[in-house]
């Protein structure tokens, strides 16, 4: 999973001229709807000879009962198979601490623990994770006392805007159970799957190291 592909798209926009003499940049600037236009498959006139129109919806697949064990509590939902674990958590259980960033496994904002292991909730289906213990950021602190990693992020100012923070914290908790070396470089490598647009990385590393170095 590589955010590079996103960058590829940006580079492509620099000079590529479409068959109709419309550059992608012109189109995007004119449309004012960069993300949604692309997501919906809308194309500039010059790009309209798309070879593969987005597929027509196949037959409806009915919802089925899905039992999720989230933060120690069994939740029963009626979900279509295509509902990701991330969408089940946010849209159906209203546990919005887990964030949707890229929704393609590239940013780490949706990191949760399944059976104690950190995973991207956007790239698994809710129906695939039935009855497995799932921990979200809401389930990290048992009461009013913060989890040591949560407290460390506060103490070390490990965030700015905070959007990536739940994923960073869940990833750090998962990392503590994995065989990484003691140095800062190991933390940076082990946390490479969590992107922080604000660039709070030095403080995130300090926060995690403070937890790892506690006797």
């Amino acid at each position, binding site marked *: *999973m*590589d*955010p*590079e*592909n996103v960058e*590829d*798209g940006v*580079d*492509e926009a620099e000079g*590529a001229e479409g068959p109709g003499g419309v550059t992608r940049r012109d189109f995007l600037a004119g449309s004012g709807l960069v993300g949604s236009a692309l997501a919906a*498959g809308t*194309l500039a006139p010059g*790009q309209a000879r*798309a*070879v*593969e129109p*987005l*597929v027509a*919806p*196949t*037959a*409806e*697949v009915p919802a089925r009962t899905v039992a999720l064990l989230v933060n120690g509590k069994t939740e029963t939902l009626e979900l*279509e*198979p*295509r509902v*990701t674990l991330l969408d089940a958590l946010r849209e159906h259980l209203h546990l919005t601490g887990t964030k949707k960033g890229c*929704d*393609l*496994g590239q940013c*780490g904002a949706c*990191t949760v623990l399944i059976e104690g*292991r*950190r*995973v*991207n909730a956007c*790239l*698994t*289906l809710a*129906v*695939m994770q039935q009855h497995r213990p799932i921990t979200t950021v809401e389930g990290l602190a048992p009461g009013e006392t913060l989890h040591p990693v949560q407290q460390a992020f506060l103490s070390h100012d490990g965030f700015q805007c905070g959007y990536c923070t739940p994923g960073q914290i869940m*990833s750090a908790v*998962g*990392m503590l159970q*994995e*065989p990484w070396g003691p140095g800062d470089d190991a933390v*940076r*490598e*082990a946390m*490479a*799957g*969590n992107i922080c647009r604000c660039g709070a990385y030095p403080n995130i590393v300090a926060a995690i190291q403070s937890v790892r170095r506690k006797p």
Partner: protein
Amino acid sequence: MQPFDYVVATDVESALAAMRAGARPVAGGTNLLDLMKLHVEVPARLVDVNALPLGQVEATATGLRIGALVRNSDLAFDTRVQERFPVLSEALLAGASPQLRNMATVGGNLMQRTRCSYFRDASQPCNKRLPGSGCGAIGGYTRMHAVLGTSDRCIASNPSDMAVALAALDARVVLASGAGTRSVPVTDFHRLPGMHPEQDTMLRPGELILAVEVPDKPFSARSRYLKVRDRASYAFALVSVAVALHLDGGRVREARIVLGGVGTKPWRCHEAEAALTGKPADEVRFKAAAAAALRGAKPQGDNGFKIELAKRALVRALHLVAGEA
């Protein structure tokens, strides 16, 4: 994602039966669900194979048998792999992120599809996604594309790190179908694009990966993976090198050299291996091997730099393995 049906298989037989009925197997889901969100893959039915008994790494008389469902992280941290097949552990840890490695399986890693941005964009022509529609990459933006094994239909590179290491270890893929099981070398598992870039592998319809077998060879333990990318971590390879050497008194008795990031499949370099065999392990021979490895490489616009980069990466990796760096 488009709607799709979902069934669970509890053993190999029920998985194969579901696949015969048209279902696509899903394990980690990290590549398939990603492509389904982009409408590049549109299966009508998935069969969840996670409950199949394929999740163990077992010692055999000749090496290790790695179940298709072993997660990439578990394999990377397996002490037997770290000690006997270090190139495999290093390649796995150089791929994706810790979260993805906790999900992704060995079988899925072999099956992962190219990161070509034209393949991943359903509005673009792509012979791999839609045969006969053309190739958007040829004459387009090609910085990440292949320089070896390309055809006039497709220049997409294979993205796997793990497969590059497995190819250097003489590993074999064990496959099952209704007709029984068979095994093929990893080096034959992926296909050249040729006239049919839509066929990534030689897997037949209805066939399922059961395991990967890695034999202990005299060169296996002296092996390294070197990956060059646009940033320090969490990016696909511009160039990668898997090297394994059997050294005897400063001479190379046997060598394995496989390149990643530059080929349409994991690229084993027989000529480079031959250039080293029986020769002293030194800079002169390493450079000769690098020249042999990239002979025949064909630049595609933006990616010409990969040829020199791959040569230098290979020389560096050979020094690392020979212990002279």
